[in-house]
Protein backbone atom coordinates (compact mmCIF):
# COMPACT_ATOMS: atom_id res chain seq x y z
CA UNK A 1 0.00 0.00 0.00
CA UNK A 2 2.74 2.31 0.79
CA UNK A 3 5.42 0.80 -1.32
CA UNK A 4 6.37 4.13 -2.75
CA UNK A 5 7.09 5.38 0.69
CA UNK A 6 10.77 4.70 1.17
CA UNK A 7 10.72 4.61 4.92
CA UNK A 8 7.99 2.10 5.54
CA UNK A 9 8.58 -1.52 4.83
CA UNK A 10 5.85 -2.66 7.18
CA UNK A 11 2.27 -1.86 7.30
CA UNK A 12 2.35 -1.10 10.87
CA UNK A 13 5.49 0.86 10.91
CA UNK A 14 8.76 0.37 12.57
CA UNK A 15 8.42 0.09 16.27
CA UNK A 16 11.63 1.90 16.70
CA UNK A 17 10.27 4.81 14.83
CA UNK A 18 9.54 7.99 16.61
CA UNK A 19 6.00 9.22 16.59
CA UNK A 20 4.55 12.48 17.68
CA UNK A 21 1.73 13.04 20.08
CA UNK A 22 0.32 16.50 20.38
CA UNK A 23 -1.78 17.68 23.33
CA UNK A 24 -4.73 20.01 23.01
CA UNK A 25 -2.87 22.83 24.67
CA UNK A 26 -0.03 22.68 22.14
CA UNK A 27 2.55 20.43 23.73
CA UNK A 28 4.35 17.96 21.50
CA UNK A 29 5.66 14.68 22.74
CA UNK A 30 7.97 12.38 20.84
CA UNK A 31 8.09 8.72 21.69
CA UNK A 32 8.88 5.43 20.10
CA UNK A 33 6.15 3.80 18.22
CA UNK A 34 6.33 0.72 20.34
CA UNK A 35 5.55 2.88 23.33
CA UNK A 36 2.73 4.68 21.60
CA UNK A 37 1.26 1.38 20.61
CA UNK A 38 0.53 0.58 24.20
CA UNK A 39 -2.59 2.61 23.68
CA UNK A 40 -4.98 0.87 21.40
CA UNK A 41 -6.52 4.03 20.09
CA UNK A 42 -3.22 5.61 19.29
CA UNK A 43 -2.05 2.42 17.77
CA UNK A 44 -5.04 2.20 15.54
CA UNK A 45 -4.78 5.77 14.63
CA UNK A 46 -1.18 5.47 13.65
CA UNK A 47 -1.77 2.22 11.92
CA UNK A 48 -1.17 2.85 8.31
CA UNK A 49 -3.26 -0.07 7.32
CA UNK A 50 -6.22 1.56 8.93
CA UNK A 51 -6.31 4.36 6.53
CA UNK A 52 -6.22 7.21 8.96
CA UNK A 53 -4.62 10.27 7.64
CA UNK A 54 -2.45 10.57 10.62
CA UNK A 55 -0.59 7.47 9.66
CA UNK A 56 1.44 9.29 7.09
CA UNK A 57 2.41 12.05 9.36
CA UNK A 58 3.02 9.73 12.30
CA UNK A 59 1.38 12.27 14.46
CA UNK A 60 -1.41 11.77 16.86
CA UNK A 61 -3.51 14.63 18.05
CA UNK A 62 -4.79 14.01 21.53
CA UNK A 63 -7.76 15.76 23.11
CA UNK A 64 -6.10 15.86 26.45
CA UNK A 65 -4.11 18.44 28.22
CA UNK A 66 -0.35 18.34 28.24
CA UNK A 67 -0.02 17.10 31.77
CA UNK A 68 -2.38 14.28 31.15
CA UNK A 69 -0.67 13.28 27.92
CA UNK A 70 2.65 13.29 29.66
CA UNK A 71 1.41 10.97 32.38
CA UNK A 72 -0.10 8.69 29.85
CA UNK A 73 3.13 8.40 27.94
CA UNK A 74 4.92 7.76 31.19
CA UNK A 75 2.58 4.90 31.86
CA UNK A 76 2.97 3.63 28.35
CA UNK A 77 6.71 3.52 28.74
CA UNK A 78 6.32 1.67 32.00
CA UNK A 79 4.03 -0.81 30.43
CA UNK A 80 6.13 -1.25 27.32
CA UNK A 81 9.19 -1.95 29.36
CA UNK A 82 7.70 -4.40 31.78
CA UNK A 83 5.74 -6.27 29.20
CA UNK A 84 8.89 -7.97 28.12
CA UNK A 85 10.45 -8.92 31.41
CA UNK A 86 10.64 -12.47 32.53
CA UNK A 87 7.91 -14.04 34.64
CA UNK A 88 9.98 -14.01 37.80
CA UNK A 89 10.62 -10.33 37.91
CA UNK A 90 8.43 -8.18 40.07
CA UNK A 91 6.72 -5.25 38.46
CA UNK A 92 6.86 -2.09 40.58
CA UNK A 93 3.25 -1.15 40.17
CA UNK A 94 3.18 0.77 43.39
CA UNK A 95 5.89 3.02 42.15
CA UNK A 96 3.80 3.84 39.14
CA UNK A 97 0.85 4.49 41.34
CA UNK A 98 2.85 6.88 43.42
CA UNK A 99 3.58 8.88 40.38
CA UNK A 100 -0.07 9.62 39.74
CA UNK A 101 -0.92 12.94 41.35
CA UNK A 102 -4.37 13.26 42.81
CA UNK A 103 -5.00 16.53 41.04
CA UNK A 104 -5.16 14.97 37.64
CA UNK A 105 -6.26 11.54 38.73
CA UNK A 106 -9.85 11.62 37.61
CA UNK A 107 -9.04 13.35 34.37
CA UNK A 108 -6.35 10.82 33.74
CA UNK A 109 -8.76 8.02 34.42
CA UNK A 110 -11.15 9.40 31.87
CA UNK A 111 -8.45 9.79 29.27
CA UNK A 112 -7.02 6.38 29.96
CA UNK A 113 -10.42 4.89 29.47
CA UNK A 114 -10.83 6.59 26.13
CA UNK A 115 -7.38 5.66 24.99
CA UNK A 116 -7.95 2.09 25.96
CA UNK A 117 -4.96 2.31 28.07
Amino acid at each position, binding site marked *: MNEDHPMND*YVEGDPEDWVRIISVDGFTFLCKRKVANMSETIKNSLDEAGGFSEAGTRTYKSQERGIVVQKMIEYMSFKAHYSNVGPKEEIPVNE*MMDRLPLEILLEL*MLAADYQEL
Partner: protein
Amino acid sequence: MLVEHEPNGGHGNRRIQTLVQLCQRVAANHIESISSVGELSFTLVKPVLERCSAEQLLRIEDASPHLKSDSEELWRSLCRRTYPAMLERYDAETHAEPDSWRTQFFVLREAEAKRLEEVGLRIRSQRLEADERKKEREVKFTDRLPPPKRQRTGWNMPTQPKTLFQKTRSEASKLQKNMYHTRMIPPMLKGKDYRPTGNTSSDSLLPAMSTYSNRVTVKTVARRPSAAGLSEPSALPSKTSNPLPSKSTNPPSTFTAESRSLVSSSNGTLSISSKDPKNSQIPSSEIVSSYTKPFTVTKKDPMASLFVPKHRAHSQRAR
Protein backbone atom coordinates in the same frame (compact mmCIF):
# COMPACT_ATOMS: atom_id res chain seq x y z
CA MET B 1 4.68 -8.08 3.81
CA LEU B 2 5.76 -9.54 6.93
CA VAL B 3 3.82 -8.70 9.93
CA GLU B 4 6.10 -7.75 12.64
CA HIS B 5 5.73 -9.29 16.00
CA GLU B 6 3.06 -7.78 18.20
CA PRO B 7 4.40 -4.42 19.25
CA ASN B 8 2.41 -4.77 22.40
CA GLY B 9 4.93 -7.19 23.75
CA GLY B 10 4.32 -10.73 24.67
CA HIS B 11 2.30 -12.03 27.56
CA GLY B 12 3.86 -9.57 29.92
CA ASN B 13 0.84 -7.40 29.29
CA ARG B 14 -1.35 -9.67 31.25
CA ARG B 15 0.44 -8.92 34.43
CA ILE B 16 0.30 -5.20 34.22
CA GLN B 17 -2.82 -3.44 35.32
CA THR B 18 -4.28 -0.89 33.01
CA LEU B 19 -3.92 2.76 33.71
CA VAL B 20 -7.61 2.83 34.42
CA GLN B 21 -7.22 0.24 37.06
CA LEU B 22 -4.27 2.00 38.57
CA CYS B 23 -6.21 5.23 38.72
CA GLN B 24 -9.09 3.51 40.39
CA ARG B 25 -6.85 2.05 42.98
CA VAL B 26 -5.22 5.35 43.78
CA ALA B 27 -8.58 7.07 43.92
CA ALA B 28 -9.93 4.46 46.29
CA ASN B 29 -7.01 5.14 48.57
CA HIS B 30 -7.76 8.82 48.64
CA ILE B 31 -11.53 9.03 48.66
CA GLU B 32 -11.47 11.80 51.19
CA SER B 33 -9.76 14.05 48.70
CA ILE B 34 -12.40 13.48 46.09
CA SER B 35 -15.18 15.99 46.23
CA SER B 36 -16.76 15.03 42.95
CA VAL B 37 -16.30 12.60 40.13
CA GLY B 38 -17.72 15.06 37.70
CA GLU B 39 -19.06 13.43 34.59
CA LEU B 40 -17.33 10.15 34.96
CA SER B 41 -19.56 7.24 34.24
CA PHE B 42 -20.74 4.99 36.97
CA THR B 43 -18.88 2.00 35.65
CA LEU B 44 -15.64 3.87 35.80
CA VAL B 45 -15.98 5.02 39.36
CA LYS B 46 -17.77 2.01 40.73
CA PRO B 47 -14.68 0.32 42.17
CA VAL B 48 -13.92 3.54 43.97
CA LEU B 49 -17.41 3.98 45.35
CA GLU B 50 -17.53 0.45 46.56
CA ARG B 51 -14.93 1.34 49.07
CA CYS B 52 -16.59 4.50 50.34
CA SER B 53 -18.20 5.03 53.64
CA ALA B 54 -21.79 6.15 53.77
CA GLU B 55 -20.92 9.80 54.20
CA GLN B 56 -18.49 9.76 51.33
CA LEU B 57 -20.94 8.06 49.07
CA LEU B 58 -23.58 10.59 49.94
CA ARG B 59 -21.26 13.47 49.23
CA ILE B 60 -20.17 12.16 45.87
CA GLU B 61 -23.70 11.38 44.89
CA ASP B 62 -24.77 14.89 45.72
CA ALA B 63 -22.01 16.30 43.55
CA SER B 64 -22.80 14.02 40.63
CA PRO B 65 -26.49 13.19 40.70
CA HIS B 66 -26.30 10.92 37.69
CA LEU B 67 -24.72 8.35 39.92
CA LYS B 68 -27.81 8.04 42.04
CA SER B 69 -29.69 5.87 39.66
CA ASP B 70 -27.02 3.25 39.75
CA SER B 71 -26.04 3.45 43.35
CA GLU B 72 -28.78 1.28 44.80
CA GLU B 73 -26.66 -1.78 44.95
CA LEU B 74 -23.93 0.21 46.57
CA TRP B 75 -26.24 1.22 49.35
CA ARG B 76 -27.44 -2.32 49.68
CA SER B 77 -23.96 -3.63 50.23
CA LEU B 78 -23.31 -0.77 52.62
CA CYS B 79 -26.32 -1.79 54.64
CA ARG B 80 -25.21 -5.35 54.68
CA ARG B 81 -21.70 -4.41 55.65
CA THR B 82 -22.52 -2.04 58.44
CA TYR B 83 -25.57 -3.58 59.98
CA PRO B 84 -25.53 -7.27 59.23
CA ALA B 85 -27.65 -8.24 62.20
CA MET B 86 -30.30 -5.63 61.62
CA LEU B 87 -30.65 -6.64 58.05
CA GLU B 88 -31.27 -10.24 58.96
CA ARG B 89 -33.95 -9.17 61.35
CA TYR B 90 -35.44 -6.99 58.69
CA ASP B 91 -35.53 -9.77 56.17
CA ALA B 92 -37.18 -12.08 58.60
CA GLU B 93 -40.04 -9.67 59.16
CA THR B 94 -40.75 -8.33 55.73
CA HIS B 95 -39.61 -10.04 52.64
CA ALA B 96 -39.96 -7.11 50.34
CA GLU B 97 -36.98 -5.11 49.27
CA PRO B 98 -37.02 -1.55 50.46
CA ASP B 99 -37.71 1.01 47.81
CA SER B 100 -34.60 2.84 48.48
CA TRP B 101 -31.64 1.23 50.05
CA ARG B 102 -30.22 4.62 50.61
CA THR B 103 -32.94 5.65 53.02
CA GLN B 104 -32.95 2.18 54.42
CA PHE B 105 -29.39 2.65 55.40
CA PHE B 106 -30.13 5.67 57.49
CA VAL B 107 -33.13 4.06 59.06
CA LEU B 108 -30.92 1.21 60.12
CA ARG B 109 -28.34 3.58 61.43
CA GLU B 110 -30.81 5.37 63.65
CA ALA B 111 -32.18 2.13 64.95
CA GLU B 112 -28.69 0.99 65.75
CA ALA B 113 -27.86 4.20 67.56
CA LYS B 114 -30.97 3.88 69.68
CA ARG B 115 -30.21 0.32 70.54
CA LEU B 116 -26.69 1.20 71.52
CA GLU B 117 -27.97 3.95 73.74
CA GLU B 118 -30.31 1.63 75.53
CA VAL B 119 -27.64 -0.92 76.09
CA GLY B 120 -25.27 1.74 77.27
CA LEU B 121 -27.84 3.02 79.71
CA ARG B 122 -28.42 -0.39 81.10
CA ILE B 123 -24.75 -1.06 81.53
CA ARG B 124 -24.24 2.28 83.18
CA SER B 125 -26.99 1.72 85.68
CA GLN B 126 -25.71 -1.73 86.43
CA ARG B 127 -22.31 -0.37 87.06
CA LEU B 128 -23.66 2.32 89.32
CA GLU B 129 -25.53 -0.24 91.32
CA ALA B 130 -22.48 -2.39 91.65
CA ASP B 131 -20.50 0.62 92.77
CA GLU B 132 -23.07 1.48 95.37
CA ARG B 133 -23.12 -1.98 96.73
CA LYS B 134 -19.40 -1.95 96.91
CA LYS B 135 -19.44 1.35 98.73
CA GLU B 136 -21.72 0.04 101.36
CA ARG B 137 -19.33 -2.68 102.18
CA GLU B 138 -16.18 -0.69 102.37
CA VAL B 139 -14.70 0.69 105.51
CA LYS B 140 -16.00 4.11 106.31
CA PHE B 141 -14.77 6.81 108.56
CA THR B 142 -17.29 7.99 111.03
CA ASP B 143 -17.50 10.23 114.01
CA ARG B 144 -20.31 8.42 115.62
CA LEU B 145 -19.76 6.01 118.43
CA PRO B 146 -21.13 2.58 118.01
CA PRO B 147 -23.92 1.78 120.37
CA PRO B 148 -22.89 0.04 123.53
CA LYS B 149 -23.76 -3.53 123.90
CA ARG B 150 -25.54 -2.81 127.07
CA GLN B 151 -27.24 0.30 127.92
CA ARG B 152 -24.74 2.37 129.77
CA THR B 153 -25.85 4.32 132.66
CA GLY B 154 -24.11 7.03 134.48
CA TRP B 155 -20.62 6.57 133.23
CA ASN B 156 -20.47 9.86 131.51
CA MET B 157 -23.89 11.25 131.67
CA PRO B 158 -26.19 11.86 134.53
CA THR B 159 -28.84 9.23 134.69
CA GLN B 160 -32.44 9.93 134.81
CA PRO B 161 -34.19 8.73 137.81
CA LYS B 162 -35.41 5.25 137.40
CA THR B 163 -38.54 3.89 138.78
CA LEU B 164 -38.17 0.99 140.99
CA PHE B 165 -39.79 -1.11 138.43
CA GLN B 166 -37.30 -0.08 135.86
CA LYS B 167 -34.44 -0.88 138.10
CA THR B 168 -35.77 -4.25 138.89
CA ARG B 169 -36.23 -4.97 135.33
CA SER B 170 -32.73 -4.02 134.38
CA GLU B 171 -31.28 -6.01 137.20
CA ALA B 172 -33.24 -9.03 136.25
CA SER B 173 -32.11 -8.82 132.74
CA LYS B 174 -28.52 -8.52 133.75
CA LEU B 175 -28.74 -11.58 135.84
CA GLN B 176 -30.45 -13.36 133.09
CA LYS B 177 -27.33 -13.19 131.09
CA ASN B 178 -25.68 -15.70 133.22
CA MET B 179 -28.34 -18.19 132.68
CA TYR B 180 -29.19 -18.12 129.11
CA HIS B 181 -27.82 -16.96 125.90
CA THR B 182 -28.44 -13.54 124.78
CA ARG B 183 -32.01 -12.99 123.98
CA MET B 184 -34.53 -10.30 123.93
CA ILE B 185 -37.21 -9.80 126.48
CA PRO B 186 -40.40 -8.18 125.30
CA PRO B 187 -41.71 -5.08 126.86
CA MET B 188 -43.59 -5.70 129.97
CA LEU B 189 -46.24 -3.10 130.05
CA LYS B 190 -48.13 -1.40 127.43
CA GLY B 191 -49.81 1.24 129.45
CA LYS B 192 -47.33 4.00 129.34
CA ASP B 193 -44.66 4.31 126.83
CA TYR B 194 -41.73 3.90 129.01
CA ARG B 195 -38.61 5.34 127.65
CA PRO B 196 -35.99 3.99 129.88
CA THR B 197 -33.72 6.74 128.91
CA GLY B 198 -32.48 6.49 132.39
CA ASN B 199 -30.97 3.32 131.25
CA THR B 200 -29.23 4.79 128.34
CA SER B 201 -26.36 7.09 128.62
CA SER B 202 -27.62 9.64 126.25
CA ASP B 203 -29.74 10.23 123.25
CA SER B 204 -26.80 11.28 121.30
CA LEU B 205 -25.82 7.72 120.82
CA LEU B 206 -26.88 6.00 117.72
CA PRO B 207 -30.55 6.43 117.10
CA ALA B 208 -30.81 2.72 116.91
CA MET B 209 -31.10 2.94 120.61
CA SER B 210 -34.71 3.81 120.17
CA THR B 211 -35.38 0.25 119.31
CA TYR B 212 -34.46 -0.65 122.80
CA SER B 213 -36.88 1.66 124.36
CA ASN B 214 -39.50 -0.85 125.12
CA ARG B 215 -37.45 -3.86 125.57
CA VAL B 216 -35.20 -5.31 128.07
CA THR B 217 -32.19 -6.81 126.60
CA VAL B 218 -31.07 -9.80 128.41
CA LYS B 219 -27.43 -10.29 127.95
CA THR B 220 -25.22 -12.86 129.43
CA VAL B 221 -22.76 -11.51 131.84
CA ALA B 222 -20.57 -13.40 134.20
CA ARG B 223 -21.41 -12.17 137.59
CA ARG B 224 -20.49 -13.31 140.96
CA PRO B 225 -23.50 -14.84 142.54
CA SER B 226 -22.92 -13.07 145.78
CA ALA B 227 -22.97 -9.76 144.16
CA ALA B 228 -26.08 -10.65 142.33
CA GLY B 229 -27.71 -11.90 145.46
CA LEU B 230 -27.02 -8.72 147.29
CA SER B 231 -28.07 -6.55 144.57
CA GLU B 232 -31.28 -8.13 143.71
CA PRO B 233 -34.05 -6.03 144.72
CA SER B 234 -37.48 -7.33 144.98
CA ALA B 235 -39.46 -6.73 141.99
CA LEU B 236 -42.87 -5.47 142.19
CA PRO B 237 -45.18 -7.93 140.64
CA SER B 238 -47.63 -5.34 139.65
CA LYS B 239 -48.46 -5.40 136.09
CA THR B 240 -49.77 -1.96 135.98
CA SER B 241 -47.45 0.69 135.04
CA ASN B 242 -46.18 3.17 137.38
CA PRO B 243 -47.46 6.39 136.06
CA LEU B 244 -44.12 7.94 135.56
CA PRO B 245 -43.21 10.15 132.71
CA SER B 246 -39.98 9.23 131.12
CA LYS B 247 -38.20 12.31 132.23
CA SER B 248 -39.57 12.38 135.64
CA THR B 249 -37.99 14.58 138.14
CA ASN B 250 -38.80 12.55 141.16
CA PRO B 251 -35.93 12.60 143.48
CA PRO B 252 -33.94 9.47 143.17
CA SER B 253 -33.45 9.25 146.85
CA THR B 254 -36.95 8.05 147.36
CA PHE B 255 -36.45 5.10 145.18
CA THR B 256 -33.20 4.05 146.56
CA ALA B 257 -34.60 4.22 149.99
CA GLU B 258 -37.46 2.11 148.92
CA SER B 259 -35.34 -0.42 147.24
CA ARG B 260 -33.06 -0.70 150.13
CA SER B 261 -35.82 -1.26 152.46
CA LEU B 262 -37.14 -3.88 150.24
CA VAL B 263 -33.84 -5.55 149.98
CA SER B 264 -33.45 -5.72 153.62
CA SER B 265 -36.65 -7.48 153.93
CA SER B 266 -36.11 -9.58 150.96
CA ASN B 267 -34.79 -12.56 152.61
CA GLY B 268 -37.93 -14.38 153.04
CA THR B 269 -40.44 -12.02 151.85
CA LEU B 270 -39.92 -11.74 148.23
CA SER B 271 -43.31 -11.09 147.04
CA ILE B 272 -42.64 -12.54 143.71
CA SER B 273 -41.35 -15.94 143.98
CA SER B 274 -41.12 -18.49 146.60
CA LYS B 275 -37.50 -19.10 146.03
CA ASP B 276 -34.73 -17.91 148.20
CA PRO B 277 -33.09 -14.84 146.83
CA LYS B 278 -29.79 -16.39 147.57
CA ASN B 279 -30.34 -18.63 144.69
CA SER B 280 -30.18 -15.62 142.76
CA GLN B 281 -29.98 -17.07 139.38
CA ILE B 282 -33.06 -19.13 139.48
CA PRO B 283 -35.53 -16.69 140.88
CA SER B 284 -34.29 -14.09 138.58
CA SER B 285 -35.14 -16.27 135.75
CA GLU B 286 -38.54 -16.78 137.15
CA ILE B 287 -38.95 -13.16 137.68
CA VAL B 288 -38.15 -12.55 134.18
CA SER B 289 -40.24 -15.33 132.89
CA SER B 290 -43.28 -14.07 134.68
CA TYR B 291 -43.04 -11.04 132.65
CA THR B 292 -42.57 -12.89 129.49
CA LYS B 293 -44.92 -12.16 126.81
CA PRO B 294 -44.90 -13.15 123.25
CA PHE B 295 -42.22 -11.11 121.76
CA THR B 296 -40.96 -10.09 118.49
CA VAL B 297 -37.40 -10.16 117.55
CA THR B 298 -35.89 -6.89 116.68
CA LYS B 299 -32.94 -6.39 114.59
CA LYS B 300 -29.70 -6.06 116.38
CA ASP B 301 -27.40 -3.35 115.51
CA PRO B 302 -24.33 -5.09 114.23
CA MET B 303 -22.09 -2.57 115.85
CA ALA B 304 -23.56 -3.27 119.23
CA SER B 305 -21.23 -6.08 120.02
CA LEU B 306 -18.11 -4.20 119.34
CA PHE B 307 -17.20 -2.13 122.33
CA VAL B 308 -18.64 -3.77 125.35
CA PRO B 309 -16.38 -4.75 128.16
CA LYS B 310 -17.07 -8.08 129.60
CA HIS B 311 -17.06 -7.17 133.18
CA ARG B 312 -18.05 -4.12 135.02
CA ALA B 313 -16.84 -3.59 138.46
CA HIS B 314 -19.52 -3.95 140.96
CA SER B 315 -18.89 -0.58 142.38
CA GLN B 316 -19.56 0.97 139.09
CA ARG B 317 -22.96 -0.26 138.69
CA ALA B 318 -25.33 2.55 138.27
CA ARG B 319 -27.81 3.06 140.95
